[in-house]
C-alpha cells in the first residue's frame, strides 16, 4: 500500500469526515480497490469508527474490497440491453472467465461486474472492457473478443 499517496488524498479533502465518500472514490480510482490498511488509515485520519467506514464501503457499488484484475469487464444489464439479450452475453463472459460478477479470477486477469446502464443503448447489448465500449454483442462475438486480452 502506498501510504503517502493515501495521506495525500485525505489531506486534499482537508481531512473532513463529510468527504469520506469522495476520499474513498479517489483511493478506489488510484489503486482499483480499498485495502484493509487503506480503510484503517482513512478511519484514523478522519476520526470515523471502522464500523461506519465499512458500512459506507460496502453500501456503495463503486467500491471494491478485493483487488481488481488486469482487465475490468463491465457487462451492461440496463433494460434496453436486457431486452436485446444481455443475460446471454453475461453467461458467456462468466463461462469463459470462470468468475461471477464481483469476482476476480485467480490469475488476476479479469474482474467481472455488471452495471445498470452505460447509456449507449444504441449499441446494446454492450460491455465495457478497460473503459472501451464493445457493442452489438452476441455470444460468439463476445467469446471471440475475450480472446484478445492477455
Amino acid at each position, binding site marked *: 500500500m502506498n501510504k503517502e499517496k493515501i495521506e495525500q488524498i485525505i489531506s486534499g479533502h482537508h481531512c473532513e469526515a463529510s468527504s469520506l465518500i469522495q476520499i474513498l472514490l479517489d483511493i478506489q480510482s488510484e489503486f482499483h480497490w480499498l485495502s484493509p490498511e487503506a480503510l484503517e488509515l482513512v478511519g484514523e485520519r478522519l476520526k470515523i469508527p471502522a464500523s461506519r467506514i465499512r458500512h459506507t464501503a460496502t453500501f456503495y457499488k463503486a467500491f471494491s474490497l478485493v483487488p481488481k484484475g488486469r482487465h475490468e469487464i463491465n457487462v451492461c444489464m440496463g433494460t434496453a440491453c436486457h431486452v436485446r439479450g444481455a443475460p*446471454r452475453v453475461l*453467461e458467456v463472459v462468466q463461462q469463459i472467465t470462470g468468475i461471477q460478477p464481483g469476482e476476480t479470477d485467480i490469475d488476476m486477469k479479469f474482474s467481472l461486474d455488471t452495471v445498470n*446502464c452505460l447509456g449507449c443503448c444504441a449499441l446494446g447489448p454492450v460491455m465495457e472492457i478497460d473503459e472501451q465500449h464493445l457493442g452489438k454483442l452476441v455470444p460468439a462475438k463476445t467469446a471471440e473478443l475475450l480472446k484478445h486480452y492477455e
Partner: protein
Amino acid sequence: MINSPAELEQFRQDILAKRSSEKARISVCAGAGCLATGARKVIDAFNAEIEKEGLESEVCVKGTGCPGFCERGPIVVIDPQQTCYLQVTPQDVPEIVAKTIQQKKVVERLLYCDTVKNEKSVREADIPFYKHQERNIIGNNIKIDPKCIDDYLALGGYSALTKTLFQMTPEEVVDEVKKSGLRGRGGGGFSTGIKWDAARKAPGDTKYVIVNADEGDPGAFMDRAVLEGNPHSILEGLIIGAYAIGSHEGYVYVRQEYPLALENVGVAIKQAQECGFLGRNILGSNFDFDIKVHRGAGAFVCGEETALLLSLEGKPGEPRSRPPYPATSGLWGKPTNINNVETWANVPLIVSNGADWYNQLGTARSKGTKIFSLVGKIKNTGLVEVPMGATLRDIIYKIGDGIPGGKKFKAIQTGGPAGGCIPEEHLDIPVDFDELIKVGAIMGSGGMIVMDEDTCMVDVARYFLNFLTQESCGKCSPCREGVKQMHRILTNITEGRGKEGDIELLEELAMSTGSASLCALGRSAANPVLSTLRYFRHEYETHIKEKRCPSYTCQGLVSYYIDSAKCGACRICERECSSQAVMGGKNLIHIVDQTKCNACGTCFEVCPTKFGAVIRISGEPAPARIPEEARIIVRQRYVPKKAKQAETAV
C-alpha cells in the same frame, strides 16, 4: 471577470463579432454514445485534414454535446448549411472536406435516407427523427462545445441570469416558475414553483440548492446528455434558483459512472467562476453563490432526495421518512431545494421567454417539453424531446421509426423500475404526468423501453425486481423482504417452478410492500409486477400452468433442436454456439446436445433462412435425437453446367 450586465453584453457582442465571418463549422457529436462508436477518431481526422489542406483560418472543428440520434452516430453537422452526415468514419473525412467544405457539395451516401420513400434529407431539421420533435433543451447541444463557455454565451447564455438578478425580485422569480407550470422532471412531477416557495419561506439564513444528477434508471440517459452537452444551462438554472430561494451554496450530485459529465461540469463551474457568474458579487449584483461537485458512488437509492442528502454528508444513503421535507430540514438540517438536471435546464428558458411562452406547450396539467430516452426494440434509438401530450404512437412510429426486424410491438415500459408496461391498446394516450399514471405507468425520469413479441413480460417484471433487490438499501423491512420475495416468486415462475396461487401471493406482497415501505423505491417496487399482471396476466398463467414461455425468452422453459429433414450441415450453428452444444461435422446432420444447451437461442438466429432448420419449442421436451447412422448426408456430386451439356452431347 465580468462585473455588470453591460459588460456581459459587450463580451457577448465581441464573441459574435469574431464569429460573424463566413467561417464554416464542423460539429461532431462527442457525447458518450458517439464516442463509443469512434467520434474521437473522426474529430482527430477532421483536424488533421483541415491542417493538411491549410484551411485552419476558414474552418473550425468542434466536439459537441449529444443531439440525440445515437442510432446513427457518429453524427457530423456542417454549418452554415446545416448539412447532417450520419455514421461518419475517419475514412469519410477527406471526402467531406473536399466536397462539402471546399466545393460546397453534398456527400450523398452519408445523408439520412428514408428507405420507404427513398428520400434523402440534407439538413438536420429535415430528418424525420428530428422533424417531429420540439427540441427546446437538447437542440442546442450540437451547437455547443461543452468545454467552451463562449459557445453558450453566443447563444444568449446567462442572459436569463442578468434578467433575474437585475430586473426581478426573488418572489417574482418564484411566481414566474409557479405560473409556468413546470413540474419536477426527476419522476415525482411535483410543482417546482411550490417547492421553491417552501424552501424560500423556510426559516434560516443558510440554505442549499442541489442538482440531482444521480440518474440511475437503467436505459435512461437524458440527464447525462444535458450535463455533458450543455452544462452551463444547468448552472444558470441553479444560480437563478439560488437567488429565488436565498441560497449561497449549491451542489451538483453526479454519479461517478458518468466521467465525461463530471469532467464537463467541473470545467463549466471553473469557467463560470472566472467569468464572474459564480462567486462573490455576481455581475455586480451583491448576490453571492458558489457550486461544488459531489460524486455519487453507485447506489440507485441515492436518487431519492433524503438518501442523496445523507450521501452528500458522506454517509450511506439510506432514506428517512418525510416530513420533515428537505425544504425545511435538508442538508445538515438546513432548508434545501433539490431538483433534477432537466428541471434546472428548463429554468433559464422560463425566465428568458416568460411563463406565458413556456406554458403554451403541453397539456392542461403538464407544461413544456420532456426528453425521453427511446431504447430497446426500436429502429431509432436515441434521445427524443417532445411537448408534453405527444402520443406514444407518434414517439414510437414517427420518431422512432417502429420496431426493427418486422416484429410486432408488444409494450412500452416507461418510468424505470418504478414504472409500468403499456400495451398497444393505450398507445394513443397523450404522454403527461397524469395520463401515464391512469394506465398504470409513470413518467419517471423519462426512460422508454420498447418491447416486441420476443420480450417476455414475466421476465421483464423479474428483471426489474432483481434490480430492486440489489438496490434496496435494506433499512426498512417491507422493502427489503417484500421485494426479495416477489423476486423469488417471479424467478420460480420463469424457471418453470411456478405454482397455483403465485399470482395472488404476488398481488398481496405488492400491496403490503407498496403501502408500508419507507421511500419511493419500495413503495413503487411492485409497479412492474402490477402493470404486467394488469395487461399480460395470460403470460403469467401460461408460465405457471403450461410451463411454457410464449415469447421463448425464459431459458429454463425453452428447448432448441434441429429438424433433421431441413439441416444443410453448413456448420454455422456449430461454430457460433458458445456452449459447444451443437454436434456438427462435415456432411453430418447437426444435433443439439440438450445436456449442454443453455437455450440462448444463438443457433436459431444464425441458421440461414434457406434452411430454417433450428426449431424452438416451449412447454414440451425436445424430440429424441436421431440415431448416429441417420446423420450422414449423401450429397450429389456437383457437376458444372457446361460439363453436363458436354456429357449429354457425347
